[in-house]
């Protein structure tokens, strides 16, 4: 589903006036890509009401700033509520999924699940709260909040796959390494969202987040943390073009 979004963005996003990009090529690319648990992405006006669910709730509302007419709009909205796991800067792929687990092949369903059980196991022991509890294979954190250069290092697609297989839905980081970003979008395993400020310094692991998944070409979302407003945006134009 999510990858069909990236497919849509191949055809829709890059028909810009500046360059004539022929998009007949991806027609052989079957739209029935890996089915993920993501809901359809929607567009939603900013001034919808929201109520903080808990004292330390983080709410995310997304809206489109510019919507080319070629992108279909879907008016149903979805709220998404989950715990966040906070990491620092330069979290490289060896920390996300250490090399010894790369013998697992992501396109094999059983090994896909196993990959998920090792997500972020490479984080140093200074991270007292682990992403996945020992003896568990899924994570209770649906959002990973990172700092700068998230996903640097290897080109291994096992990294976003492990995060997605573990149960993470999105990463909100200050910036990304290009191959990880590209792989995240290509697989649709996690949404790589970019924040304008260092949310990793504002949140603590375990903070609860509300969020609406509405993504179009250039989407502004606001993250409300304890009353303060932060902006984060997802530049879909960056998708697949790194």
């Amino acid at each position, binding site marked *: 589903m999510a990858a069909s979004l990236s497919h849509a963005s191949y055809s829709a996003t890059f028909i810009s006036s500046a360059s004539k990009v022929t998009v007949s090529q991806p027609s052989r690319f079957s739209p029935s890509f890996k089915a993920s648990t993501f809901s359809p992405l929607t567009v939603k006006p900013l001034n919808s009401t929201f109520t903080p669910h808990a004292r330390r709730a983080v709410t995310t509302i997304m809206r489109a700033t510019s919507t080319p007419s070629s992108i279909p709009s879907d008016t149903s909205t979805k709220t998404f509520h989950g715990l966040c796991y906070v990491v620092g800067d330069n979290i490289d792929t060896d*920390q996300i999924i250490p090399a010894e687990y790369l013998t697992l092949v992501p396109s094999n369903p059983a090994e896909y699940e196993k990959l998920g059980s090792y997500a972020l196991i490479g984080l140093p022991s200074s991270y007292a709260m682990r992403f996945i509890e020992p003896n568990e294979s899924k994570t209770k954190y649906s959002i990973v909040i990172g700092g700068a*250069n998230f996903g640097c290092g290897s080109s291994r*697609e096992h990294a976003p796959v492990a995060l997605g297989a573990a149960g993470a839905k999105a990463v909100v980081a200050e910036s990304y390494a290009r191959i990880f970003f590209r792989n995240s979008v290509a697989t649709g395993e996690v949404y790589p969202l970019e924040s304008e400020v260092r949310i990793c310094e504002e949140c603590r692991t375990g903070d609860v987040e509300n969020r609406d998944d509405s993504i179009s070409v250039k989407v502004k979302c606001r993250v409300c943390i304890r009353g303060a407003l932060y902006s984060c945006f997802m530049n879909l134009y960056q998708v697949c073009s790194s």
Partner: protein
Amino acid sequence: MASSLVSPSPISSFIGNKKSLGSSAFPSTSQIAIQRCKKQVSKKIVSVMAPQQSERKPATTGSVKTGMTMTEKILARASEKPQLTPGDNVWVNVDILMTHDVCGPGSIGIFKKEFGENAKVWDREKVVIIPDHYIFTSDERANRNVDILRDFCTEQNIKYFYDIKDLGNFKANPDYKGVCHVALAQEGHCRPGEVLLGTDSHTCTAGAFGQFATGIGNTDAGFVLGTGKLLLKVPPTLRFVMDGEMPPYLLAKDLILQIIGEISVAGATYKSMEFVGTTVESLNMEERMTLCNMVVEAGGKNGVVPADSTTFKYLEDKTSLPYEPVYSDAQASFLSEYRFDISKLEPLVAKPHSPDNRALARECKDVKIDRVYIGSCTGGKTEDFLAAAKLFLASGKKVKVPTFLVPATQKVWLDLYTLPVPGSGGKTMSQIFEEAGCDTPASPSCGACLGGPKDTYARMNEPKVCVSTTNRNFPGRMGHKEGQIYLASPYTAAASALTGYVTDPREFLHNKRRSPNSVCRLDRSARLTAPTVVRLASKDRGVFLAVTWRLTLLRRAFEN
């Protein structure tokens, strides 16, 4: 050579944002480095670099044809477009797609799922499949992954599959090569002007041949397998001009560590890194490969070195396919330009746990180490081992810590045992390594560079301190999470092995003047005094005596 700068795009680096419009105020590199990464840049090292140039020129209209950089030209040709600008998204024809045993099975899985179980690859001669990561291990899944590659290659009739079946004896496998990036070069798959994609971040190594080479994931590779094309965004180029004669104690590894330390691990994200200048021109192909190899450690998309006579000579006996090199136009726009005076650089290390944690090797001389690792696509090529051997030869001593040698490919392994080392009196590298007390060179593969299965040779299974010629030192990179890895050149690694501490190679290399190979010059006007007593290794003593005797004879002749 004129170099102007494009007006910064929103996705461009922080350098663009920090530029001032006035010509007088050039922000210094140290300020920019501090703004983005928290690490302080040592002023001693910054002084060898000219401040980064930042100029703004008005953006030109689309109809005006501007000059293009090498990377832009390569992508323009590959996408059949006359003109490209950074930021353009284009469908690029791929000349070579490489994959290995870690990412190959996943890519194949996606290819079959999307294009059909019976689909055929777009060109069976343009897919190069090189098992190299987890080979010499008893891990069943790792071995199975090589089998998956074999089955696919048989079914698709892939022309270039460097297979291995006998894991107990790598020499019994005539097709097996070893580390993919070195194998690609040695087998003539890297050609100037082409587009090479690989399911490995260090695919950028091939940029040393003046081509566009970058790493991609399984899904993108699966797509390329079916179509032979990929959607790529044209990156802006950072230019690194390195001039000056390369000092005898520096290697390309020191140069790239210098650069990464300067611009940080995200300094080149989404950008191309172009290496030019007299120093780069003086580097041989393997040194250029080391330079481009670590472009990804700075976040770079690809690295390029313009092709020249060195490149053509290297390719002479390796490929018969025609190629057409491209070069940056004089009026091309670069995002930034960095200039180096190489003669002022000193041997460097990258301290744990980041490739941009740069420090002078001599400032780390109190760091006690437990082991040294010489290997990988970055530091396990023939030239790398030659450098280490030269240093061991110059010192004549034995190593104080376990020193692991992992040649990148079968060819490198063979060179270790056959190539004579200059100035050694005909010894091979393997002999020198043996005399120095190093471990026997291991079976060629990626080895412990990335840890791997637990039984991988030289894997760090306990928290140790290691000086390594590899490319990354993030926590847990070589196995153990608390392992400390100091990235260094082969010279620095060898020097450190000899002392048991992180050591500047000049501790041993300055003795080069006293090596038997050096010429004794007689100054007639100088008084011929008694020869100075020098502590020499036994093998040098014979030559020393011969030289002394000759000096005595000459003196007598002179006096007569």
